[in-house]
């Protein structure tokens, strides 16, 4: 494998993003919605400023009433301005909230789109090595984390930072020295918050882990209840559950203890007392009016909002960045397979030769060692062996899902790496063990590789695959949607739909990973007919457990621990291999 940069297998025109680091990447996504970010900032600043107007105007009202005689004329205008600013505040706050929300949703949409396009562009090798569950987690949970990072994460961070800043901004209105309390509070607050989050985060992680462990063991124990009862292990399982459950309880208590001593709250109360005292002292000196004291105290009360919100706002951002990192990691992973666009592109006959093939997954032990054999065009080959002997890996080397580590594979005498990749793959079909069907109609699933196929062609393919009979039993026949309520297909039925698919694309080489089992003999008859029809007229590699398939194959390859333990026709092997012949003894 040579790690050359080759064009992706699928692309769509998209505005490029900066993928050099998670931060740059997130910023380049955000930059597209710059005007929403501006709306968010204007909303946040306006919201906080207008919130500060409540104590300021209240203070003015107090000063007016404390005049002798009370200046009642200003009361109505003050109240009207106060009410007006608060309605304005509502609108601005909505701007902040919805601006953040819209940014978050758009980024979620764009990120998911970018990830998906990137996934479609990756090689089959990548997709075969990358666990679906992991990709799923990134496409759903991690994308979601990025969304939450903006709303409520960044929304609250900006909102609370602006609230922290307002007392510093407005205190000097009354006396310059009053800025002291909010400034000292802000500094101590960040130190305390940092310390709090640092102590809390590992414990939160412990809580999550111990809950996960309890949950996994619990559901496993209950799923295995029959085995548990059969082995009389109830008490042992209860003890294990109690241990897990107690660990969770202890972690919960540790978390609760830390949350209980939330120092920023104490700092807030201290700031209130200090600020009030400071204002009263200034009042004693005749520098402030009572209304100013009222206003200043009210402004200090604004600090309560950032005190509480920041607890989770910052952790939303850190998990959002972690999610962004994971998504980016998946997108930037190298795609190693050379497409070889200039390689051989011609109709295939279907001859296959393995020459001293050794294969290992990246970073692993070899799963195939020095495998050599020759298959003539049109032959049927049975590959047999126990689990983990390399059967599936062997089959996937033929269409270059993976490339060999050592040795060569030739198709029609040409090294597969010298074939044009598209030409090679379009003439080889793989039917995997677990046949994947899309939530489309049965007809669309059969025609998946040839969307332009006529209905008559689809039905003919289904008949050859022995699938027509069960399809007709559905109320809507070929128009039945997979996954619809009441539509369940057995493994064997799914396999026959996949065989139908192969009839339409008519490959020269068919690779069939067969692990279905027939409950009854009549079904077995149908499977036999379907496979025989599929194998006719093309080279077929079957990984199978079926004695009848093995018995009648042109060539049988017995694998044991990645090596060919025996190879030949049935009659040869019955004579030469004890391991083989004993499976045909009753």
């Amino acid at each position, binding site marked *: 494998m040579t790690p050359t940069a080759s064009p992706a297998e699928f692309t769509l025109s998209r505005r490029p993003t900066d993928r050099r680091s998670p931060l740059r990447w997130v910023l380049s996504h955000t930059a597209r919605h710059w005007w929403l970010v501006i709306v968010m900032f204007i909303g946040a600043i306006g919201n906080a400023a207008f919130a500060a107007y409540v104590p300021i105007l209240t203070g003015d009202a107090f000063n007016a009433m404390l005049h002798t005689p009370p200046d009642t004329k200003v009361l109505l205008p003050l*109240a009207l301005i106060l009410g007006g600013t608060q309605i304005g505040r509502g609108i601005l706050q909505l701007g902040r909230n919805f601006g953040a929300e819209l940014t978050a949703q758009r980024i979620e949409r764009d990120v998911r789109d970018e990830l998906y396009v990137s996934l479609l562009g990756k090689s089959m090798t990548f997709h075969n090595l990358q666990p679906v569950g992991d990709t799923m987690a990134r496409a759903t949970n991690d994308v979601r984390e990025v969304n939450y990072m903006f709303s409520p994460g960044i929304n609250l961070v900006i909102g609370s930072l602006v609230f922290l800043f307002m007392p510093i901004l407005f205190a000097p209105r009354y006396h310059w020295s009053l800025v002291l309390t909010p400034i000292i509070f802000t500094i101590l607050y960040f130190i305390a918050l940092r310390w709090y989050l640092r102590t809390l985060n590992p414990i939160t992680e412990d809580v999550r882990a111990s809950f996960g462990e309890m949950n996994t063991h619990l559901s496993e124990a209950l799923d295995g209840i029959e085995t548990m009862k059969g082995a009389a292990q109830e008490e042992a399982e209860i003890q294990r559950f109690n241990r897990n459950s107690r660990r969770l309880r202890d972690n919960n208590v540790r978390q609760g203890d830390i949350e209980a001593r939330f120092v920023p709250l104490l700092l807030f109360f201290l700031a209130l007392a200090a600020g009030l005292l400071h204002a009263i002292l200034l009042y004693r000196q005749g520098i402030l009016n009572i209304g100013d004291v009222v206003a200043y105290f009210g402004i200090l009360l604004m600090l309560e909002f950032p005190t509480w919100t920041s607890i989770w706002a910052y952790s939303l951002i850190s998990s959002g960045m972690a999610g962004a990192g994971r998504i980016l990691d998946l997108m930037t992973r190298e795609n190693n397979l050379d497409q070889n666009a200039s390689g051989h592109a011609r109709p295939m006959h279907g001859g296959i030769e393995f020459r001293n093939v050794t294969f290992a997954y990246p970073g692993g032990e070899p799963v195939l060692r020095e495998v050599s054999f020759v298959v003539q065009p049109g032959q049927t080959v049975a590959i047999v062996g126990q689990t983990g002997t390399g059967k599936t890996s062997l089959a996937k080397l033929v269409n270059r899902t993976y490339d060999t580590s050592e040795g060569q594979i030739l198709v029609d005498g040409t090294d597969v790496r010298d074939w044009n990749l598209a030409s090679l793959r379009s003439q080889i079909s793989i039917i995997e063990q677990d046949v994947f069907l899309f939530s489309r109609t049965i007809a669309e699933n059969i025609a998946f590789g040839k969307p332009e196929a006529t209905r008559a062609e689809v039905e003919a393919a289904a008949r050859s695959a022995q699938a027509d009979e069960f399809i007709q039993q559905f109320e809507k026949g070929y128009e039945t949607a997979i996954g619809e309520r009441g539509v369940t297909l057995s493994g064997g039925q799914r396999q026959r739909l996949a065989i139908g698919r192969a009839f339409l694309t008519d490959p020269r080489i068919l690779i069939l990973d067969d692990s279905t089992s027939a409950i009854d003999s009549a079904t077995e008859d149908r499977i036999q007919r379907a496979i025989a029809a599929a194998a006719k007229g093309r080279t077929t590699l079957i990984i199978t457990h079926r004695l009848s398939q093995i018995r009648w194959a042109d060539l049988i390859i017995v694998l044991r621990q990645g090596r060919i333990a025996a190879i030949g026709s049935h009659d040869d092997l019955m004579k030469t291999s004890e391991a083989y012949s004993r499976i045909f003894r009753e």
Partner: protein
Amino acid sequence: MGFYEGLNEEKYDRQYKDSVLTQRILAHFSGQKKEVWVIALLTILLAVITTAQPVVVSQGLDALQTLPSLGGSLLIGGAVLLIGVADWGLNWARRRMTVRTVGDVVLNLRELAFRAAVEHDLSFYDQFSSGRIVSRINADTSSLGELIIIITDVSAQIFNAILLGVIIVRTEWRLSLVLFAFLPFIFLLALSFRRMARKVTKSGMQAMADVNSTIKETVSGIAIAKNFRQEASIFGTFDAANRTSYRVNVWRGFILALVWPSLNALVGVATAVLVYAGGWSAAEGAVTIGAWYLFIISLGRFFDPVMNLSAFWSNIQSGLSAAERIFALMDAEPNVVQTGNQDVPQLKGEIRFENVSFRYAENEPVLVDFSLSILPGENLAIVGHTGAGKSSLAKLIARLYEYQSGRILVDGLDIRSFNMQQYRRQLGLVSQVPFLFSGTVADNIRYACPQRDCISEADILSMARRIGDGEWLETLPDGLNTRVGERGAMLSMGQRQLVALMRVLMQKPAIFVLDEATASIDPFTEWQIQQALTMILQESTSILIAHRLSTVKAADRIIVLERGGILEEGDHNGLLASGGHYASLYNTYFRHQSLAYVEKARELVEGD
């Protein structure tokens, strides 16, 4: 934030009365009466302290009107400081107590719930999916714990609001009416927002679930799409789902973004009215400056409890539903009841069914007046169509279900009189889909005896080597120390069966009950399974629910079961020759497993 809690919960019809549930919840706190009282006391103190702050500040403002002494100023500042520190300290003590008390109650509830779940027989598990039972034991107990915390928080806030309410009414009742007039509006606004939020959250979740399943499908289908070069088609499906999700979530986001701005605006308007009305009252001398301030500052203090009250009812409801699900799990009567607790001697394995009747549900009889005698050491295969009662027969022997009439005797003793643990230790049970617990292969083989003293590593190894020359061990990457993964997922079906059979081989039970798997297994592993099975059959009385031809052939006696009755019995060759029910079953289920079929397979496909 209480307001947003429980927006996505389903309604749940309850069977228990609220009073009954409340009493039972309280009963679980009876072990911690002292702690509960302390928490209650702390909650009240906290409410008093929280109320004291605005009162002290407003009193301070009044005092300021005549220029205060330095001492006076310090007194006001000191009082506010003291209140703040006390507030923080009381909160600290209360939360520490609460998290411990609730933690212990939940711990205890979980143990009781899990114990109850384990004691139920399998008919209970047929009725409820294990996933639901898991969520009762884990999630429902958690939400019950959260309910308790919410109740203490909300009662502190309500108590605080009541105290403050009393104080302002006594200060100036007319002005307090102005304030109270706004509360219903805030409450109604909060309530209607909650209703809207609930609706959009629900539709948002639904859309999200759809999108996730489409994404799941399109991600899983990428390999197939690439195989057929259908990337564009699959992208179209993805793109549509992604856009739908965006639309739905933007709408949901808009509704949720609306909540706080509207409420803040309403409170702002109320403040303006209070500034105006209070200003006039102060100017006319009806209230002091301090009292006026108290009114303005109190508005915000009523705000939190009113907001939380709008969600409180549904919090309580969902908490009670959770409690009910837990209690229902604990209250369900176990069906399998032992009449005695007799010690079980070393069994020889003679089994007798005497006129046994069994049904899973009313009007669905499975076994009717069923009698059968199995000799010690005999190997009995049971065959029949699906639903004939084969599995039931096996599970009755293992006492996993209760039968309604008749008797089952083992070595002449009624199995209802046994000490169940001792009895089951002499049973070897392998179910159709062998279940492995996460851990190593060796852990699973010695599952029936987790203390390593009764089965040594060497014993396991020597037994493993006797099966197919130990060839199956070489397919396990770490031999006996290979981790099997959750539910054994990292092993193939054939490997799992071998491990389950090994477990039985090490256990050496008097009675062996096998529900044979139907999964497809490679012929080499199949051959090893056959060997292991033969070794077990030699040592135990065996009841085999057979799906494999080789197993039926190996049995001493075959019984053909239909609708809970025995149609035929005999050995394979005899029954086949007589051309009765067995012969027809053979033709339906076993024919394709024979070598004769293999030899004729080519003719079959070419005969088309």
